[in-house]
């Protein structure tokens, strides 16, 4: 009873979370806030919370720099750092949207040391009189360039002001490169799908900037590259769908002259050269009509598909041609290859499944039994393509709409390595696809596209730190340097990563290592610093450089462990650990990854928990860690690590999004949020627990990928009886409407569009909800709970309660 009262007033209290009842309240508040403020603000009263300093600090940092560190105080030695279990790491959103950050129109000032080249930043010591600044990474003393002659204490350039720890430079390098959009369209679709796709594509033309270049490749059994410049007859170049061609051959066959020579210099081609290559890539404003007609006339692949066969889809060759075309025509220019597929590649290089319908496409079961014939070859092929594409700064999106799998598992690297999107839907004729696709072309407050191309992220660290790697939509540029750690986490061994496509929410996880030796003194009052330098091509074709420099204090883990503990950002840490887990899961067996995660969790609890040995009941966690185990619990059940009930394509799809979204979204993915609507009060977030499923409630669950509205049993009956139609039940109508409105708000902003499910008690789609909630009531323990509330979940999965009990046991045991 008390619990429910608590629930009524406080939003997300962990009533059943036994970890630390005492501290859980504020922890819950924080979580609520975090989830809340980032998704939407539900109502004013939820904002009542008490913030700690660290929360504020973290929030401030995130707002300003787009950075969230797992630890906001850094242990001063390597040994201590390892003992902290969760590595010093951060989530970094390079292009975090900042309305208050006007870019500056000059080149950054670089440290003159050849292997440093850090950018002048607010943390640098400046001798205004000598006009000298000291690099805070290598301590090199650098003179200011002549243009800074007027510098003084009162006349400081922006980059020296503390509020500009993140600053953006617009630099002039070469001619502005146009944006390039190359549509690669599968024509083996059902008629209505194709029609819908055609319409979407036609619509997209109006969203593109007029000077952007567009191209069109269609494929089915053959691959056709459409020439867009021609008058009269529609021309296309056709490639056999089964023959793997080298980039050179492709360019020759397309009559692209000798682009390699220009390509070498890393410059876009001179205009006259471009003109010749441009037959396939034309400015939107010039070919708008042509292309619209062309798309309109697009026919389904005409080759007959015999009964019992899949249509022959030459996706591999089509991609190869697309990559080859861009490689030849526009190397190192931002370009977006948008692949639309309605089924798996069935022939040629990169084929995922044969054309015999009787051999189904590989499942996890097949893969585990090593029974997926084409898996390795196809993956290898697509990886090679992805790498080529990434080298040239072109990104590849995959829009896969089909009821069955489409081979995303094999093709995911195309998007993962190049920063492209993967969108998965059932049909092109759904609003899910249509809206998502439209949202690709959404614009920011300046009217610029929310996309950037050809990003290169460079990380510089002060001497006590080294960078272990990054996890996100990037590839390594293999730039060695003094701050590269030998210990790889994620994509490591480099200080630079290429992120071919970025948007304001693209977030990388970056992992660091403290290399300071235990006996070496902590730099007195010194701070560790990290600088992120992101060069990219802005969607308005400018080249820009964004520099973010952050610093954190060092702390001696022995003397200041409490401080360190309280500097722990459990949300960031959960996401960062989850990324590591997902990254591992790509190459390791699922159970191994879970074991690893568990071990990390147990170690963390052992390190920071307060307990008496061998006494599970004595276990307590401090406030800053209190939610972490719960995150881990949901992570373990999440589709990122569990393949059960998911196809390989779905897993790939979920993982793809998980490793690129920002912290808020990632947290939603790990632990979906659940709101409850009732007559008893204003809508409120409730526990993601089966006990929240009550007959007189409407629930709204957001898992990032799905948005589920669930009508409790009673509500559903009322609705069926049509009370909402009656004037006297206006309030019921409003109650029904409230979650819809809220859902709509989420749908407006979310990319990709979540699957929207409106269901009710007993509905088949209710499974989306039931599979997510903590199975606190199952058919096994229904009677032990013996409540009339809540809905039992028919599962053998352990509930959070059991998980926690077990965790406590292991944490306190000396054996573990």
């Amino acid at each position: 009873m008390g619990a429910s009262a608590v629930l009524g007033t406080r939003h997300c209290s962990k009533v059943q979370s036994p970890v630390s009842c005492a501290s859980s309240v504020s922890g819950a508040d924080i979580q609520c806030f975090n989830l809340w403020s980032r998704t939407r603000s539900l109502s004013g009263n939820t904002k009542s919370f008490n913030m700690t300093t660290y929360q504020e600090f973290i929030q401030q940092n995130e707002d300003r720099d787009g950075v969230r560190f797992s630890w906001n105080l850094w242990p001063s030695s390597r040994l201590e750092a390892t003992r902290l279990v969760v590595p010093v790491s951060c989530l970094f959103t390079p292009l975090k949207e900042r309305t208050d950050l006007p870019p500056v129109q000059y080149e950054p000032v670089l440290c003159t040391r050849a292997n440093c080249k850090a950018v002048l930043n607010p943390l640098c010591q400046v001798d205004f009189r000598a006009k000298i600044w000291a690099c805070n990474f290598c301590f090199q003393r650098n003179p200011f360039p002549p243009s800074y002659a007027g510098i003084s204490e009162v006349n400081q350039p922006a980059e020296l002001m503390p509020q500009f720890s993140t600053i953006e430079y617009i630099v002039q390098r070469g001619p502005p490169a146009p944006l390039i959009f190359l549509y690669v369209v599968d024509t083996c679709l059902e008629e209505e799908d194709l029609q819908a796709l055609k319409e979407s594509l036609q619509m997209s033309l109006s969203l593109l900037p007029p000077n952007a270049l567009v191209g069109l490749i269609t494929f089915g059994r053959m691959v056709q590259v459409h020439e867009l410049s021609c008058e009269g007859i529609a021309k296309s170049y056709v490639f056999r769908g089964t023959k793997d061609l080298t980039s050179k051959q492709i360019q020759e066959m397309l009559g692209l002259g000798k682009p390699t020579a220009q390509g070498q210099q890393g410059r876009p081609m001179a205009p006259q050269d471009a003109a010749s290559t441009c037959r396939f890539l034309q400015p939107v404003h010039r070919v708008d009509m042509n292309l619209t007609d062309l798309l309109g006339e697009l026919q389904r692949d005409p080759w007959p598909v015999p009964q019992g066969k899949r249509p022959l889809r030459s996706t591999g060759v089509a991609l190869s041609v697309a990559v080859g075309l861009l490689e030849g025509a526009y190397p190192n220019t931002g370009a977006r290859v948008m692949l639309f597929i309605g089924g798996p590649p069935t022939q040629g290089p990169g084929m995922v499944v044969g054309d015999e319908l009787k051999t189904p496409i590989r499942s996890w079961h097949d893969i585990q039994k090593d029974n997926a014939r084409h898996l390795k070859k196809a993956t290898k092929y697509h990886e090679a393509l992805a790498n080529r594409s990434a080298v040239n700064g072109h990104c590849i999106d995959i829009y896969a709409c089909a009821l069955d799998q489409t081979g995303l598992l094999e093709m995911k690297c195309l998007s993962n390595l190049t920063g492209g999107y993967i969108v998965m839907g059932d049909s092109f004729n759904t609003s899910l696809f249509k809206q998502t696709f439209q949202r690709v072309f959404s614009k920011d407050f300046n009217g610029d596209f929310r996309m950037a191309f050809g990003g290169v992220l460079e990380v510089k660290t002060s001497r006590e730190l080294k960078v272990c790697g990054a996890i996100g939509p990037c590839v390594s540029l293999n730039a060695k340097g003094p701050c590269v750690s030998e210990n790889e986490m994620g994509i490591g061994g480099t200080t630079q990563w290429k992120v071919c496509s970025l948007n304001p929410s693209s977030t990388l996880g970056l992992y660091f290592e403290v290399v300071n030796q235990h006996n070496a003194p902590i730099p007195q009052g010194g701070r560790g610093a990290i600088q992120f330098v992101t060069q990219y091509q802005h969607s308005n074709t400018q080249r820009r450089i964004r520099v973010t420099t952050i610093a954190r204090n060092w702390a001696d883990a022995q003397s200041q462990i409490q401080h360190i503990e309280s500097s722990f950002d459990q949300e960031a840490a959960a996401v960062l650990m989850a990324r590591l887990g997902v990254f591992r899961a790509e190459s390791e067996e699922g159970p191994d990854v879970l074991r690893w995660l568990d071990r990390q969790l147990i170690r963390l609890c052992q390190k920071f928990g307060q307990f008496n040995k061998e006494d599970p009941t004595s276990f307590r966690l401090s406030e800053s860690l209190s939610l972490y185990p719960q995150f881990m619990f949901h992570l373990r059940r999440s589709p990122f690590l569990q393949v059960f009930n998911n196809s390989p394509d779905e897993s790939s799809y979920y993982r793809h999004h998980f490793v690129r979204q920002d912290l808020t979204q990632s947290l939603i993915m790990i632990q979906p949020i659940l709101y409850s609507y009732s007559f008893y009060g204003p809508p409120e977030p409730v526990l993601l627990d089966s006990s929240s499923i009550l007959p007189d409630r409407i629930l709204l669950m957001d898992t990032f990928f799905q948005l589920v509205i669930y009508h409790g049993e009673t509500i559903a009956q009322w609705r069926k009886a049509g009370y909402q139609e009656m004037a006297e039940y206006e309030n019921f109508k409003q109650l029904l409407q409230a979650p819809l409105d809220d859902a709509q708000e989420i749908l407006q902003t979310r990319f990709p569009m979540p699957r929207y499910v409106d269901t009710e008690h007993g509905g088949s789609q209710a499974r989306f909800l039931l599979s997510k909630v903590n199975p606190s009531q199952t058919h096994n323990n229904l009677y032990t709970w013996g409540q009339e509330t809540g809905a039992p979940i028919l599962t053998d999965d352990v509930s959070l309660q059991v998980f926690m009990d077990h965790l406590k046991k292991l944490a306190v045991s000396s054996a573990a």
Partner: protein
Amino acid sequence: MPPSSERSTGRPARVTAAERHSPKPVGCSGAQTPALWRSLTWHSAFSAGDRHKRTLPRYYSVSFWHEERAQAGMGGYQGGFGPPGATQPLYGHYGGQAQPFNAPPTAGMMNGMHPAPASAQYGQIAQQNGAHPHRFAAPPASAAGYGQPPQSSYNNMAPQPPPATQQITNQMNALSMGNYAPGPQSPVNTGGQQHLQRPAPVMGQPQMHPQSPPMSPQMTAPPMASTPMSPPPMAGAPPMGGPSMDAPHMAGPPMGAPSMAGPPMGGPPMAGPPMGAPSMGAPSMGAPPMGASTMGGMAGPFPGSAPGVGGFQQAGLGPQGYPQQPGQFGGHMAGPQPGMPGMPGGFPSGPSQLAGPPQKKLDPDSIPSPTQVIEEDQQRQVGKLYVTDVRGQVPPLVTTQFTVQDQGNASPRFMRCTTYCLPTTADLAKQSQVPLATIIKPLARLPANEAPLHVVNHGETGPVRCNRCKAYICPYMQFTEGGRRFQCGFCNCINEVPMFYFQHLDHMGRRVDFNQRPELCLGSYEFEVTLDYCKNNKPPNPPAFIFMIDVSYNNIKSGLVQLICNELKTLLENLPKEDGSESSVIKVGFVTYNKILHFYNVKSALAQPQMMVVSDTAEMFVPLLDGFLVNYQESKAVIYNLLDQIPDMFANSNESETVFAPVIQAGVEALKAAECSGKLFIFQSAMPTAEAPGKLKNRDDKKLINTDKEKTLFQPQKAVYEQLAKDCVATGCSVDLFLFPSQYVDLATMASIPSHTGGSVYKYINFQVETDGEHFLRDLRKDVQKPIGFDAVMRVRTSTGFRATDFFGAVHMNNTTDVEMASVDCDKAVTVEFKHDDSLGEDAGALIQCALLYTTLSGQRRLRIHNLSLRCSSQLQDMFKSCETDSLVNFFAKSAYRAVLKQPVKSVREILVNQTAHMLACYRKNCASASVASQLILPDTMKVFPVYMNSLMKSAPLVASTELPTDDRAQQRLSVVAMGVEETQLLLYPRLVPLHNVDLGSEALPAPVRCSEERLSDCGLFLLENGHSMFLWLGQGCPAELIQGLFNLPSLAHLQPNTSELPALDNPLSKKIRSIIDNLLEKRPNSMKLQIVRQKDKPEILFRQFLVEDKALYSGASYMDFLCFVHREIRQLLS
């Protein structure tokens, strides 16, 4: 005056050497002058010195040869038939007699005649004239002066014998050349000049003076007079005299002079016997036999031949020729010199001197005349019906118009045999040397008055066949046991009659329904077949035509692409269709290409055609299925749109490289994908040099000519093309190739695919829309509209005792029995050779059944059966009586043309001569009644055989001349392979029709005259046509009315050179002549470009090479000479 100085210094010296030894064949050298031009224009890179070095050795050998020839007195033949040395073995078994004859020449040969005579001659000429290059370049002005001296000097010279020799020889050369040749020295210089200035390599033969009108007057008077005159003084020098002498005599026997031992013969008309004599050079020869009147001598020997059919011309004929002659020759005389290059007149005739003035007349009319034979056969058929109810009946000639009534044997339009009576044993056959072959034109067109073939349907079980040999039911199946069984006429197997087919027999043992069933009473009929006879057991789809247009720079520039696109619009309206069907079901598709291929989607639903480019030429594929092959009527709008746009689309293309094999591959793939058979029409501009499979390079090496490696020029480059041809045949994809080259294109290779797939090759060198456009379009129309069958397999079954062993045609053979043809049209014929397995029975005769399984225009699978029964006899005489010259020639042409792939051209010619001689000798030995050995006796049925054989040997593929473009030779070689009898006949003996006195009122074509220069008349107008070329020859003396009527020009001089069309004038003459020409063009399978040549104009050379009875330009004897030679050979064989 550089030229003259040149002549006075350099040239005489060189010539001297030559002259000293050699009686120069003036005619020959004249004829060969063009070689010189070429060497000058083409090899101008050589320094003069170079040229000397190169030519010198040849020069010596030449002189030697001449000398030798003078001794042998037979030189003329060697040129034609190759060095006797080589022939020796062939004659070997015919006894010692050969020896004496052969000896001298052999020796001569051995002594260093390595270069073949022909080329030697060229060499010589080149040598002689080598020093003159500048002269040609000399300005016209100088020419006049230049022309003068020779004459005067000539005149001067005459009196002084010793030094004269040189000079005069020289002079002689010049003069005689004057007629044919650039004749720098000729009095008529202007003409020479003209020539030189435009060396037109096309011209092969320079024989003519380019510009006649001005010439002739000049000529007539002074030079003429002097020339003929001068010889007498020269007489001392044997070589010289000859030519000049001839001139005056020309009128009579052009023949006589050369080979002519003439003198003894006295008898003017006599051709036969004398020939032997001269060639032998032995005095013993000719005299006695000859003396007799031709008639007597000739007619006698032929047993049973009607008087009119005598071996040689009879009196009756004489008149025909004679009266004309005076006029003709008078004209000639007046004109330039003896003049005819190919004429025997050209021969130096030592003998003639001996003989003294009178006798060298051999009447050309006395030798068998093809035109007459044709004419007579036609007369015989007038008003008759040719009924095929008799076994072994010899049909009318192929040139004859007749109506056939099928009564159990296939019409001769479908099948013709070399002989309709087979020798019973292999030994006999071998002895006779007569090839046993049949020429099958399975889809031959039938005239409107003959019924089309009946179509029989035997229902679900398919046609009734013999169980053992699988022969189809036909009139030769013998029904027994009251109709329950039948005995196969081919293998004698007894078969059950299927239930549904049972029928009672009448009292004659014939089935009661005999007359109701075409397959029991007719020689030719068709079956509808079951799915078992279809590819993959699926009913075939309608066939497709794919037009593949080369849009490289050349074709665009020449306007060809535009022309084709325009034409296609109308052409496609008239796609061939099955008799009785409303519209054609043939699908059409379009491809353009240069280095890459462009396919077009012309689906009717589209507003605009779509182009699909395939650049992957290494592995060709078809980019689209639906919309590529469409029904023209349905997609008309889109196709129009496409055809309008194609020329514009590529208007600015400067791509000049093309591919070829991938284009065909694409067609094959397209047909494969559409699961139909069909035909590709490829319009290719040049050799495919782009980097792709089937890339070709120039391998036209003139140095190979006359060597053992000459055959490589005819052999296609293998690898890609061989495989491709197989693919084509397997798919049922036929290829028609239209070539528009400006130079060598390795036709031997490019045409190899058409020639294996039942396709045709058309070539338009230096194509220009204005002059060749119409010609090409006619070809294209004919080609597209031809009745045609696709994806055909032919099987020839024979009764026991003999079998088909070899097949010639545009076919592909995967095994030894099935003749596969991707397509077979109404003009394609397959020649099948038979050999004995065993002996044949005279009673049973020999049966041939040809079954052709094919897909019709409407996509139905049909089986066409042709049956033919032949007699068998143990008497060679019977066989000879049943021979068919035209078929024989067809066979020889095909086999000889195939042989050049494996053997040197020279030996092929030898074999041909030998076989001719053997056949005739065999006849003489076994069939002819005893007669004097010196008489030449020819079987009635083969009386004009030699003229065809001679013509065949003079045909381009068999003439080893560097003058002939390799491509032309290859093309002729390949085109003949698919020809029927009618075409080979026409090709080897062109029609020469006098038109100047055409009867405007009559429908009939004027009677053709013999192909010989002497049949032309100065004031005449002649049309010559051989199925591939067509000339309108205008005599110098053409009446002005004629010119006015035809050309609307005041005189011949106003006629533009290179005119190739008659203006459409509204007068009876113009209309008549144009209608004659149009009719001919309509009738022939190929279109011909009308070439209008004026007598003595340079292009006349082209025309002259078709005068097959005359001596050939490059090498090859005249008809008369050949007869003499053959006669001599026969005598050798017999003695």
